[in-house]
């Protein structure tokens, strides 16, 4: 290898007139994409993840326009329709022919003198057309007061897509409005968890030593408590609803309770991440260049860990939603007059009641669908960030 023949000379012999030309690069651009662009491509190619994303967007829209979409106000108590079943819908018009417009049968309520239960009989001859944009109960949608509803019956008649509860309130309306709390509890709770977990996890991973030891003990202690009993204990310490302590206060404190218990997982994972970054070459390089701890954490570690924080956060949303559901189901979470899916399911606690009125279980389907969509979303995000991890 000490001397090398000039290779160009030889080549010219073989082909005396080489043409020196530079061609346009006919290459694909996969290699030129940034990390975030790659993630976006991978995410958008994942059909289940896209289903999760769009499904959640649709659910948020439906839930927040809930009072407008549902034909009845969620607090309206219809004394004539206690535990009323879902209204039967038919597409056969009064003229006996198929029509695109759905009809519902008129119902009459009678109290059975022997069982003291309401009995509902449909008048099969009387069909009432379901119409769009009808006048109904006054509601406020996103702060706007209106009495217009997306669909309903005209002339003050009512119908119940998903039946009514024990006070004759529209389950459909209650599920939509309850979703406002149930779908945001996860987001806000995770946001709080991320703040707690990110700060404590990063500090613990970066500084190590005593800070880390204490953090580890704290995480171990919190992790050793069974989650729901601990939530229950904390939630039962919240004051009852009063003038000074409104449902909104309670809502925020419940999310706080949820995140106090569940930040540990996030902190633990971030700590591991930060520890691996601390030993990474780029951190050593930054240290050697004289960067301060703060600068290293802020400019090197957080951007590197951001995608992971997002993924871990997204993956812990379902747990939060389920936590709220469990707590409210036990009567320790969201309390009336506020509604959430868990609070609605509280009515379904007695099996004997549900057996007779199975539509009381419909909120469970809402929980299931939402959590499923969030899981798909979180899973897709993780696959997009780190395709090899799962």
């Amino acid at each position, binding site marked *: 290898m000490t001397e090398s023949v000039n290779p160009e000379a030889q080549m010219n012999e073989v082909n005396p007139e080489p043409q020196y030309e530079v061609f346009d690069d006919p290459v694909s651009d996969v290699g030129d994409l940034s990390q975030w662009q790659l993630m976006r491509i991978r995410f958008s190619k994942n059909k289940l993840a896209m289903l999760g994303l769009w499904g959640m967007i649709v659910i948020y829209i439906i839930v927040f326009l809930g009072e407008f979409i549902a034909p009845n106000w969620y607090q309206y108590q219809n004394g004539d329709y206690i535990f009323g079943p879902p209204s039967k819908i038919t597409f056969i018009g009064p003229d006996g022919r198929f029509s695109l417009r759905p009809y519902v049968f008129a119902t009459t309520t009678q109290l059975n003198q022997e069982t003291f239960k309401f009995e509902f009989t449909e008048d099969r001859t009387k069909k009432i057309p379901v119409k769009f944009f009808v006048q109904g109960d006054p509601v406020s949608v996103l702060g706007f007061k209106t009495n217009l509803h997306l669909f309903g019956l005209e002339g003050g008649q009512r119908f119940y897509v998903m039946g009514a509860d024990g006070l004759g309130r529209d389950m459909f309306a209650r599920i939509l409005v309850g979703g406002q709390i149930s779908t945001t509890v996860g987001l806000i709770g995770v946001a709080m968890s991320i703040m707690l977990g990110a700060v404590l996890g990063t500090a613990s991973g970066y500084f190590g030593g005593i800070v880390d030891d204490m953090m580890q003990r704290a995480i171990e202690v919190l992790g050793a408590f*069974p989650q729901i009993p601990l939530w229950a204990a904390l939630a*039962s310490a919240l004051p009852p609803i009063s003038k000074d302590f409104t449902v909104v206060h309670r809502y925020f404190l419940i999310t706080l309770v949820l995140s106090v218990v569940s930040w540990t997982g996030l902190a633990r994972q971030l700590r591991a991440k930060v520890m691996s970054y601390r030993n990474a070459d780029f951190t050593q390089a930054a240290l050697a260049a004289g960067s301060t701890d703060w600068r290293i954490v802020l400019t090197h570690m957080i951007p590197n860990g951001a995608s992971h924080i997002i993924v871990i956060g997204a993956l812990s949303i379902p747990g939060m939603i389920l936590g709220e559901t*469990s707590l409210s189901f036990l009567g320790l979470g969201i309390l009336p007059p506020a509604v959430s899916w868990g609070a609605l399911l509280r009515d379904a606690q007695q099996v004997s009641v549900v057996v007779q009125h199975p539509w009381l279980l419909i909120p469970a389907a809402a929980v299931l669908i939402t959590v499923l969509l969030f899981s798909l979303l979180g899973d897709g995000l993780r696959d997009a960030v780190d395709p090899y991890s799962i």
Partner: protein
Amino acid sequence: MINYIFRRIGYMMVTLAIIAVLGYLIVELPPGSYLEFEIARLRQQGGNVSQDQIKALEIRYGLNDPTYVRFFKWITGFVRGDFGESFQYRQEVKDLIGQRLAFTISISVFSLLLAWGIAVPVGVYSATHRNTIPDYIITVIQFLGLSIPSFLVALVLMVVAQRVFGQQVGGLFSDEFQNAPWSFARFIDLLKHLWIPIVVIAFGSTAGLSRIMRANLLDVLGMQYVQTARSKGLKENKVIWKHAVKNAMHPLIMILGGSLPGIISGETVVAIVMNIPTVGPMYFNAQLNQDLYLAATFLMFLSILGVLGNLLADIALAWVDPRIRFE
């Protein structure tokens, strides 16, 4: 190894001490005391509660003492096996919790075993058959399992059983055995009832565990030593089970300890729905009614279970992973 175990037990004691303080404080945190409930109840019964009576009750329950005195009375008693008296039941806590705790532990442990027994093979299958139709089906079931809280599974199951089969599901004993003394027939009757909550509770954790198993195994299958094993000419089955699965189990064992509190916590809520005489219903009741010593003792025992689970998982991990064993 022995050193390692002793060090772990040392850590565990510290953790338990902190848990005792924290747990007790949390239980005492809610405003009001049991005495207020009691007085309200006595008043409701039409009696006028005299100042003397209140005094007597206060002294009896030590409610005049500051919190730390009450804590020390309780914790020193706890260590000696005397857990105090339940306000609600007017009974020794010790007599109230024994059987319930035993049921909770057995349901939780059996659920855990069932979850593991299913999750590992399922996880291995879906990792080795990644992106095939069975894998997709398993994934859908896993997501469903992760999306339904176990108490809802229990609820739906009970409603379906009653509506479709006209059968009452729930409780741990049939009526005729409810108060009967222990016998073989009663034991069989117990088993007949016990499997339903076990399956219900295992369902969610099976989904989670098999998902983690799949992820771990996919990770390990990308490792060089798996290629090394293949390059020896081993059968694919041997490559996977001997070389990959063994290493993929390590993180799973690590979370084994962490999953016990989760299972216990699921069990407590399922027990309420299914009317099972375990810790759950009584604990929540005690918590709501400020039955101080009962609630604190339950919370303590549930936490001890969790910590113990962690310890066992750590020892198991050291046993299977030579890298930890020699540290």
